[in-house]
């Protein structure tokens, strides 16, 4: 009954992003459960949209597994095919027969969405994870808005964006794409490790050799 990080994907990236979402609250913990997952433990010692949501997920009745995967990874599209995760940023799967809700997101791609004025704004990786965790939270708690899930998730996401000082998305516009947007990132928070920006501002750094 909690939040898990898949060890079959990039556990470190996922942990950094959850830690970013709780704004480096040192109450966040991670325990190895088995060869497949680590379990997140968290009882917040500070308040904010990010801390509130992660604590609620940890205490929710559902089991949510997060897989952080790199650019180019393909995921089931629910229509019999596969789709590159970087195209969609992330995806949340409904509970399976065992009640497992799966969240997948791309941790190394620059993505953008739109503000209310139609301007392109960045979707840093922890923001994308928060968005997907919103879908998961509502599925786990029976409050999922099947008629307009993106409006619901973007509205939630905006509470996190407001917390970290990012411009808000237009909840009625869930379009977006691959690219840096306005280049704004989630500010680092004290104690966060590893130090550095919490999201890419462009494609992965490359060299040819």
């Amino acid at each position, binding site marked *: 009954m909690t939040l898990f990080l898949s060890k079959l994907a990039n556990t470190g990236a996922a942990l950094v992003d959850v830690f970013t979402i709780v704004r480096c609250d040192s109450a966040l913990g991670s325990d190895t459960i088995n060869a497949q997952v680590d379990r997140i433990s968290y009882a917040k010692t500070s308040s904010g949209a990010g801390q509130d949501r992660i604590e609620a997920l940890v205490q929710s009745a559902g089991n949510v597994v997060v897989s952080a995967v790199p650019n*180019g990874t393909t995921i089931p599209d629910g229509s019999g095919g596969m789709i590159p995760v970087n195209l969609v940023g992330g995806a949340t799967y409904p509970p399976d027969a065992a009640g497992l809700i799966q969240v997948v997101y791309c941790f190394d791609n620059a993505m953008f969405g739109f503000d209310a004025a139609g301007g392109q704004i960045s979707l840093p990786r922890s923001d994308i994870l928060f968005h997907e965790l919103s879908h998961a939270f509502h599925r786990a708690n029976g409050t999922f808005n099947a008629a307009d899930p993106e409006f619901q998730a973007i509205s939630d996401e905006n509470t996190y964006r407001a917390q970290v000082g990012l411009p808000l998305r237009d909840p009625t516009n869930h379009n977006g794409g691959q690219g840096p947007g306005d280049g704004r990132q989630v500010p680092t928070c004290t104690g966060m490790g590893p130090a550095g920006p919490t999201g890419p501002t462009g494609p992965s750094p490359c060299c040819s050799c």
Partner: protein
Amino acid sequence: MANALAITDIALSARRRGLPHPMDGRRDIWFDVTVRLENPGTKPLHVVSELRGLSYDAAQRVLTLRLAEAPPGPISADAPTFTLPTPATVTVEPHASAAITVKIPAILKELRPVPGQPFALVETDLRAMHTIRCEIAASERPIGQFERIDAHALRTRLARWGRTIRSEAAVKPDTRD
């Protein structure tokens, strides 16, 4: 006519390596695939310029890159919630050429469902490929603006947009790690 668009070349770059990953020092390897196009017609063509899908036939050693939307199958009960953006496009002017470059990983990673368990990660080394097949959609009509519809409905519309041309080329990937 959109079917006048021609793929004149498909080229695979030397391998690229990323900087060491801060978490584990891992360096990703990938390739750039550059597709060259010509529009011999008399009207501008809008051409999908981003990778919408890729698949690998290990038996035939053929990598298929889709810069086009295939008609989606029926929605399954375990279909995820996600937002599918409208594809990026470029305009190829009459009697002009263009090049589109897409990035492909050396190791294709796929998440596969396992009932009651986290997704399994299946890795396939694409450096064994012999052939790259490209499918590219193009039309005289712009692809259209964002619509507030779900991903399945958008994919259904996009699959009807324009015409899809196909071409393939033999390749020799750089197999160094």
